[in-house]
């Protein structure tokens, strides 16, 4: 475990004032969102165990481990639709899981509404960006790109 946890002071005793007058639970229309998010955390967690452990094993432990990772390694994996799907699922689940987790944490600790709002905007933007980017990379990835007119050749490339 890293950095010792700092459990922040309750919002009520800080300069923003007492809870008592502020004690207004938002009477927003009830939705199932929090429940679904909670369920999703658990379901995605279980699936992620499989995906991530598989990922780690293949990338870091099998064969030569991290030394084997280079362009060719990645390209070789993504030539296979199985790994394409695997990494895609991992990307989406991990990002959604992580984003929701961080959302909870922001909700917990951001004191003022405005701060909370902007932190979440940044979070969602970053997540969306990463998810889109990652998805594009996996799908549009060409394992045998032509760079500067030179075709990159490897054994997993279809014979041209």
């Amino acid at each position, binding site marked *: 475990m890293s950095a010792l946890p700092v459990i*922040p002071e309750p919002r009520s*005793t800080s300069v923003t004032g007492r809870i008592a007058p502020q004690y207004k639970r938002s009477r927003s229309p009830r939705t199932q969102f929090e*429940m679904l998010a909670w369920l999703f955390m658990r379901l995605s967690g279980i699936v992620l165990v499989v995906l991530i452990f598989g990922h780690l094993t293949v990338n870091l432990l099998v064969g030569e481990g991290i030394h084997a990772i280079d362009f060719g390694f990645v390209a070789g994996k993504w030539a296979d639709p199985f790994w394409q799907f695997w990494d895609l699922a991992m990307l989406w689940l991990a990002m959604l899981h992580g984003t929701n987790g961080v959302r909870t944490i922001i909700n917990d600790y951001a004191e003022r509404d405005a701060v909370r709002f902007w932190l979440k905007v940044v979070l969602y933007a970053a997540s969306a960006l990463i998810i889109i980017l990652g998805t594009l990379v996996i799908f549009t990835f060409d394992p045998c790109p032509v760079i500067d007119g030179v075709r990159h050749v490897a054994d997993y490339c279809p014979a041209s």
Partner: protein
Amino acid sequence: MTAAPAEPASKVELPEGAGGGSVPSFDVTLRVRRYDPEVSDEVRWDDFKLTMYGTDRVLDALHKAKWEHDGSVSFRRSCAHGVCGSDAMRINGRNRLACKTLLKDLDTSKPITVEPIKGLPVEKDLIVDMEPFFQSYREIMPFLISKGHEPTKERIQSIEDRERFDDTTKCILCAACTSSCPVFWTDGQYFGPAAIVNAHRFIFDSRDDAGDMRLEILNDKEGVWRCRTTFNCTEACPRGIQVTQAIAEVKQAILARQF
């Protein structure tokens, strides 16, 4: 009905030394966190050196400090044996009832620190504003709601049905659980374990017909889903209520209702 036990013997040999011997005395330092906005905005720690006895509780030490040293030390208390819920406070860093914590069970070689419970606004010394706590309690509709006819005699309830919610009927609303919850500390908006425990007491009472309404209330942004199973509440509960278990049961009841 269990059969009446056999008539006990008129005379028995008693075990040697039953009931314990004489009571030892010892010295402790009680370190109390003081805060009185009438005097100063500063918070400070006051030390009291006290001679106490083996059967004394932290409450006795606080009384001694107040009665013999500094009358302005302020704290709530009433029953002095763990049934009224007045004196939940943070003793050596953990929530407990002062009247149920024996000094001899603590490390008396070091000062014993006493602070108000966290997450509720401190009013003076160990006294906090309990209103937000009771507000949450009231919001879960803590009363039996039954449709249909009132029976002329009592409602029938089987021993098993009665047993189902026994654990959560023990709550004394002391707030030790809610104010030990790291999620409650963050913004004080979470319903908190005590409210959920009291909802559980009715949700699982076979005589009650409003379980759905309570589940609906707790299926909220600030409801059960905020619980992160940190178990501080269960550890803190002076009545030994399995609080986290009760919360888990409520979560499952909400899920079961949805799917």
